[in-house]
């Protein structure tokens, strides 16, 4: 058990150039070890969501290389399915499947992709729903749930594939303020359980309390990274100082 934690995500000099020539990411490098919680913060349009989305191939990269759990992603990666089974994703807009019930949302991929039996998937789904506190909503359609509940279901859906790492793309940004807490609580519990997480968020309180490392991005670049105490307590980078003055 004393082995050094494996590196789950290793991004080297990744670059994202849009067709119109604009650079979305400039030589961004980042590594995430198993069990780590890495929080990425930065102003709007700084490329933090773009960076996160490159980790499961939703955003193609135009330079550099990413190794995620042994799968190499580069400019012309074609088969992303195997990779995506190992990387969960939670979206700002939840993106639950509206025509399926909560339980069906959780069972779809395990049955179709992992080829679990319906009973196995059902059992796994119910355990996860209990974990996010929504077991009693198993038969509801997403539209019948509040935003916070939908996001908790979305987290359970990602967990149902038993991924090695979960990416959170501003998971609380679309929520009413009173629902932010319940979602962050579920995420904290995940962190305590040892899940590897990569979180883009504006919740500085969450970053301070849960993150192992905090990364600051601006203009498509990773400007600095540090442990939360130093990041928030003694920011060294000038751009970070002014950002923190505005958001805290």
């Amino acid at each position, binding site marked *: 058990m004393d082995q050094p934690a494996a590196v789950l995500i290793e991004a080297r000099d990744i670059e994202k150039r849009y067709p119109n020539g604009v650079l979305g990411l400039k030589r961004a490098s980042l590594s995430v070890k198993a069990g780590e919680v890495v929080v990425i913060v930065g102003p709007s349009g700084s490329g933090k969501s773009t960076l996160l989305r490159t980790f499961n191939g939703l955003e193609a990269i135009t330079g550099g290389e990413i190794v995620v759990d042994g799968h190499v992603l580069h400019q012309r990666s074609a088969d992303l*399915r195997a990779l995506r089974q190992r990387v969960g994703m939670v979206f700002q807009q939840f993106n639950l*499947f509206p025509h399926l019930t909560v339980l069906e949302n959780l069972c779809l991929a395990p049955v179709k*992709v992992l080829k679990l039996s319906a009973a196995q998937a059902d059992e796994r789904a119910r355990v996860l729903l209990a974990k996010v506190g929504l077991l009693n909503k198993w038969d509801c359609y997403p539209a019948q749930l509040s935003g916070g509940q939908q996001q908790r279901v979305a987290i359970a859906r990602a967990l149902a594939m038993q991924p090695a790492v979960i990416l959170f793309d501003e998971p609380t940004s679309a929520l009413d303020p009173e629902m932010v807490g319940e979602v962050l609580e579920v995420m904290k519990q995940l962190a305590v359980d040892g899940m590897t997480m990569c979180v883009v968020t504006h919740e500085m309180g969450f970053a301070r309390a849960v993150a192992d490392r905090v990364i600051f991005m601006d203009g498509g670049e990773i400007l600095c990274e540090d442990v939360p105490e130093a990041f928030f307590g003694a920011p060294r980078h000038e751009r970070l100082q002014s950002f923190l003055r505005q958001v805290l």
Partner: protein
Amino acid sequence: MSPSLSRWLWHAVAAALLVTIGSGLYLASKRIDYTWRWERIPQYLISTEGDDQKAPFDGFVAVSEDGRALSMTALRGAETAEFTGFSRIVAGNGDLVFEGDVIAKTDAISAGPLLVGLWLTLKISALSLVFALLLGLIVGLGRVSKNPAARDLAAFYVEVIRGTPLLVQIFIVYFFIGTVLQLSAFAAGVVALAVFTAAYVAEIVRAGIEAVPKGQTEAAQSVGLSGFQTMRYVILPQATRRILPPLAGQSINLIKDSSLVSVMALTDLTKAGREVVSSTFSPFEVWFVVALMYLLLTGVLSVAVRRLERRYAVQG
């Protein structure tokens, strides 16, 4: 005035206007000296005309006194014949008839030419619709495919079909493709209608798929579903609800467009109408009845689709 009363008043206004237009048309037809003969129409819907019994040889007819038995003796030779199963005797006792003359008739209720035409219209529309939906789904998926070749082919198909008149397409299918592939007129009609309608169905399918938020595809792919699985389990079920209403309209168009197959040697409802007009010289009555029969078909379909829509609309 209460809102519901005023609403009824406006409905009454609409009804009054329709009645006015109707009676105006009626009066106008009076002035052009047209004799309405509605009584001629029913026989073309339901025919009581049955089979004829014909004289098998030249000879004399013998009818029994009660009029129930009919027999014949030959003019030359000793041949005789007994007849049964008729409803009416048209020859008289002692008549001299020749081979092939009608001597008795059998009444039988059967569908008249208009109903037979309606049945053909229904058959050709239903069959074309099935093929149009299948082909339209395939072409529609081609339109949103990631593969440029599939996209090009689908776009080419849609542009060519939508850019040419259906009547011309029917002629091409009937005279060119039909001749090359030895298609019957019915098969050619089904092919022409299906190919034409499929182009519109494809556009409806494409619009329905594109209306599903991009986040759905991203979420499906993020849990590891393949492109096919994403389409099959996530996108299409959601697109179906959006596709259904315009698809119903297209199906109704198909039924109406099917009247154009009457230019081939196909006796559909429209062709039957034309034939009945030429034998009755009552064009007004016949075309009104034909219109009403088309309306019946499309009406039933639109009610059915509304039901279906309501069922799909239950979730979220």
